[in-house]
Each structure stands twice: as C-alpha cells, then as structure tokens.
C-alpha cells in the first residue's frame, strides 16, 4: 500500500511524552501512536469540524 511521509517537528520534551506513552503500553512505536491519534481524533471530531467549516 502506498504511504505518504509527514515530517513532524518535535522537540525532545514532546518526544519524551510520546515515548513515555509507548512505554506505558499504549502503542508499539511513535508511528503507530501518532496514526492512532489521527484515526481517533478524526472519528471524534471530523463530522462536526466539517459541518462548522
């Protein structure tokens, strides 16, 4: 499956937050965690956000 690379600019503190979340068992990798955030955020907010546009 084709993928698109998005480059996030994050400092070491933001990476620490991500890595701590992974260590707590919420995800296997930075990539997985951020993709999960995208899917869950979109599911929760997209319809209303598009309606408000």
């Amino acid at each position: 499956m084709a993928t698109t690379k998005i480059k996030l600019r994050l400092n070491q503190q933001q990476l620490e937050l991500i890595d701590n979340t992974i260590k707590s068992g919420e995800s296997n990798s930075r990539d997985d965690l951020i993709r999960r955030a995208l899917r869950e955020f979109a599911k929760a907010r997209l319809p209303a956000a598009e309606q408000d546009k």
Partner: protein
Amino acid sequence: MTTDRKLLQELIIQPGTGKALELRRGQVLRIAQTAGRQCADFNCFNLHDYKEFFHTGRTRHLHGMHPTKGDFLWSAPPRERPMMAIIEDTVGTNDVLYPRCSGFLFEHHYGLAVHTNCHDIQAEAQREYGLTPDDVHDSFNFFMHTGVSPDGHPYIAKNTAKAGDYVELQALMDVLAVPNVCGADVMMTSDFELKPLKLTIFEASDTDWAKVTEPPRMKNQRSPDMFKIRSIKADRELYKDAAYQPDFTNVPLEISEVEIDLNDEEMALLSRLAGTGKYGETDAEVLRYVFHTWWIDKFMRGPKHVPKD
C-alpha cells in the same frame, strides 16, 4: 472513628479588622456569618516558611473561579502544595477572580483617601507575625458572589450568605491563616453593610479527615533546599550577580523531524482535517495539533485546557 471535634478557639472579628491565626495540620477553621451577606477575604502562609503562601492562580486553574467543598487552597509555584482543604461550604459563592480591595481603589474610584480595605486590614493583621504590607497576597474571597460577563469582564453579584452560613478549612500543613471582614462597604461585595464574622478553630475529627483525599506528592513540589539560592533576599535593591550562569531546564530545546508514514486512508483523514482550516497551515502542523490534543483529551490529568472545537 471519632466524630466529635475538640473546640480550640472561638472569636468574633469586627468590621474593619482581621486576625492572624496559627493552625496546625489537622485543625479546622470555620468562618461563619453572624448577620449574613458578608464577604471574608483570606490569606494563608506556611507557618514555618512565609515564602510559601496561597496562590489564587493555581487554585483558580485547578478548581475554577468558584472553589467550594472538596477543593483545595494551593500554594504558589515552585511549592504548589495543597495548604488547606475546603471541607464544608454552606453557600457555594466563593471567588478567586477578584483581587483584594485596596486603599488606592477607594481613593481612585470613590474619592475616599482613608477607608477600610482588605489589603490594609490584612497587612495590619499580619504585622502581628512580622510580615509587611508587601507580604499580603491575592486573597481567597469567601462568600463573594461573582461571575464573568459575556464580554469577559468580572462582576460582583448580590451576596446570598445568610446568618449561620459557614465555610470550613482543614489545614493540611501548619499555616498562618488570616481571615478578615472585607472592608468594601461601598461595593456590592457585602451588600453595602459590613458585619462581624465568627471564627472557630477545631481539632479535626476522623470524620473530617475522611472528607479529604490528599493529592499525591510530585518531585516538582519543591522546597527551598532544592533552590539554587536558598536564602531569602534581604535588601530591596536589585543588582546583577556577576557570576551568574544561565541554567534553564532542558535548554537547548532541539527540534527533530520525525517521519510518520500515513496510508491512503489516513492521508485522506488528514486532508479532510486540514480542509477545515481549524488545526494548522500545513499537513505536519495539523498532525502535530491532532496528536497533542488527542493526547490531552485521553491521558492528561487535571482540568483540560483544549476546547472541544
């Protein structure tokens, strides 16, 4: 489990006055209405280190603008400890938005150059313990009925406290607690009439302690032994330390680029989110916004600061 409280002290404070009271951990201060509709301003210091004192800002952040039963009075950073717990509140109209009234306010707003005001009342009460007018801090305003108008300005509403109404504060550390009868007789605060307040100190019962769940301690609730400068500055002039070397936390903050692979479906979601124009200018900004707000919503402890769109 003990339910009976031991009465330790009882006194009345008259209009225009306040009283500094020592409370040990586990003692309860009740501030009660005598006639009703009277605001009580309140300051609070660590009895063993006056540089730790009540902080309206952190209290307002954690408990909102009208803290009540179940909430805490927090000290300022870097201590940030719960100093007292509100274990009873029969009215529920407290305020941590307004500053204390002051001599300047009555002179500037009302043309009254010499007038009872909470700053000066606090300073006079605190003087009994060697504190100066500079040590008076933003007050917790008990029984002060306030709100914020749609245009963002605070307002004072009619005081609704009745005779016999009270709040109870349980000390979670040894404190100097300083309540005063608010001196604002030409403002709405106490319904244009100043009335005495009754103060009572009890030894907390087990039933009182059962009402309090103390928050866990954190490493960043720092004490002076963790400060780079541990002694209190004793002179008023400010001058540069020639030997000063900056030592800011986590500096330098270094930016990394983290590559995230999105499949077509995920990319379509990101494009739709970007299309709303709400979350950022670029796909990367949108994805960073999405991640952090999702994380806040899902994992952050304490009051959320991100609106639900």
